[in-house]
């Protein structure tokens, strides 16, 4: 029986932004003339030990905000984690003090961000940035942390690591920079690694290298879990065990990789897969695009958030939001088509 490493229950994270539009939407009004945008609305899911979980979604889906919420990196103001629980190894991270949660960052849970070039300090040598993390969390001498940093660079597949340690970020390619960031993230043997669009800004062949690296890391550190966030559903299918699909702040579907691609249930998932130019190794003749666009988060439809674009909608969908229900042990959907 696998252990749950992270359990998120009913998480809601909102942002209070200026009402520039001119109309005051009385639904979500807040004093001081700001309106509330629920970037993540009452979501729940779990991550097991040793699992690679993928969170897929388009812009505005709330996937990045979810990741930031876990480590409480949401700037307050304008954001606020309004409610919910994030249970990590038995402790609710949302109830910890600022100092306590800071202690988790980088050591128990670490994160890699989307733009490797802006995640590294351009003024410090690459090796120094890795060893700095090591020295902060463990009390090692300069030499010892240097050696450990070198090891990490080797683990992340950087060729000629001794040379790279002394180079500045600007002289490293995107792929190399991302490896350095992964090394920094792994420095303290985290139990959970969160990667937010780690390959989006990289070329296709480099992307493949980084995915391979993540696979290798996983096989070496068997109890560690990875949360991988991307808009590229196909990319997630390469290495994830389980995938969550998010749309406009809510979870549409949770399923393991095979089910997600062979028997998806939620119309959005089906639509996404239909939009991909390639499936089953073949190039399609014509794409079945999902019509319409992601809804305005300040003006969400009354019922299911996807109903304005859903080809299978019926009356109930427009008036109330469906709950996330389990249709098998590891498969969850929030859609009235599957309500018992």
């Amino acid at each position, binding site marked *: 029986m696998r252990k749950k490493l992270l359990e998120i229950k009913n998480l809601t994270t909102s942002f209070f932004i200026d009402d520039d539009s001119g109309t005051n939407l009385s639904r979500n009004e807040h004093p001081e003339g700001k309106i509330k945008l629920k970037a993540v609305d009452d979501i729940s899911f779990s991550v097991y030990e040793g699992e690679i979980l993928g969170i897929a979604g*388009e*812009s505005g889906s709330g996937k990045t905000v979810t990741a930031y919420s876990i480590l409480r990196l949401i700037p307050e103001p304008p954001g606020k984690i309004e409610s919910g629980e994030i249970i990590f190894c038995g402790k609710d991270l949302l109830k910890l003090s600022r100092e306590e949660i800071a202690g988790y960052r980088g050591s128990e849970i670490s994160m890699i961000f989307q733009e490797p070039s802006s995640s590294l300090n351009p003024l410090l040598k690459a090796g120094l940035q890795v060893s700095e993390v090591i020295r902060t969390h463990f009390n090692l001498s300069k030499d010892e942390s240097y050696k450990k940093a070198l090891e990490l660079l080797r683990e992340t597949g950087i*060729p000629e690591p001794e040379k790279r340690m002394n180079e500045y970020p600007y002289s490293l*390619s995107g*792929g*190399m920079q991302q490896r350095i960031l992964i090394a920094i993230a792994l420095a303290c043997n985290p139990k959970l690694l969160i990667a937010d669009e780690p390959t989006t800004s990289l*070329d*296709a*062949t*480099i*992307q*493949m*290298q980084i*995915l*391979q690296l993540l696979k290798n890391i996983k096989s070496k550190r068997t109890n560690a879990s990875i949360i991988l966030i991307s*808009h*590229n*559903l*196909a*990319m*997630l*299918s*390469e290495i994830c065990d389980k995938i969550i699909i998010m749309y406009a702040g809510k979870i549409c579907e949770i399923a393991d*990789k*095979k089910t*997600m*691609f*062979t028997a998806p249930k939620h119309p959005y998932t089906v*639509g*996404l*897969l*239909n*939009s*991909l*130019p*390639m*499936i*089953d*190794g073949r*190039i*399609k003749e*014509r*794409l*079945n*695009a*999902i*019509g319409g*666009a*992601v809804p305005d988060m300040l003006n969400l439809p009354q019922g299911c958030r996807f109903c304005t674009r859903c080809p299978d909608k019926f009356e109930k969908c427009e008036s109330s939001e469906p709950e996330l229900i389990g249709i098998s042990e590891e498969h969850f959907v929030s859609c009235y088509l599957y309500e018992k």
Partner: protein
Amino acid sequence: MKSENIIEIKNLSVSFPLRKGIFFSGDREVKAVEDFSLNIRRGETIGLVGESGCGKSTVVKAVSNLIKFSAPEAKIKGQINYFRDGCAFQLPELKERELKEFRKYIQVVFQDPYSSLNPRMTIGRAIEEPISNFEKINKEEKRERVNNLLEKTGLRKDLYGRYPHELSGGQRQRVVIARALSVNPEVLVADEPVSALDVSIQAQIINLLQDLQKEMNLTILFVSHDLAVVEHISSEIAVMYLGKIVEMGRSEEIFNKPEHPYTQALLSAIPRPFIEGQAKERIVLTGEIPSPVDKPSGCVFRTRCFLAGSECAEIVPELRETTAGKYAACIKL
């Protein structure tokens, strides 16, 4: 029935000098595009695919005569023949007025829908601008034309007076396409038109381009790093690496029988949704993409190539025809 060529690119080379000190020292330059030759047939969609530094954006600018504007110090060699109404012409021969007419013939759609529109201009005005440059028609007629274009690209007519910041990425890209089509061009060059968009919107824009092509008999040069998208939309594909074409041919053949090791690696790098029982043998290339400033000698791909041998460092492979209509540049084939 083979349609005739509309653009013939012959041995195009574009290099950008790297400045050292106040004066151009001349010895260091970036050869962004080297010896590039491609025939584009009327009414077809040609795909140009490659990763960063391959020079595809430079080809876009060269074909649409935008290099002098964006990089006046660039050196361009080679020849591009354009065909219109049965006559051939080349850019250096054209006079000032004719160069302006050239803008009606070929239009470009760029990648970033956010910086492709002037934030202070309503989208109606933005679409009107090309029309105003060439025709003196009154306001109502212009508005009528813009409304038609909005409809054609799937936008609501009431968006005429909106500003770009009020539109989504997909809508903006539609505006950009509408603007490009406002002068009825014969050729549309699309430089990564869907890369900055969400997946579900990408599909919409791809369908839109295909529909517009049929409707207006457009010739499209579609440039992208996403091989799956390029395969889907193009009839012919050229694969580029560090300024050179490494493989070229009909898209089904490139997809099913890639010959050049780079093409094979690119295909292998396309993330695949789970397929039951398929042995996923991925070609993972070693090393990084070399900088265009410091290209490897001989075959530029040899530093990452799994077929490379010692002779690859000495000989520059030529693009040879391997089977009918298929070309590859590799001495190991």
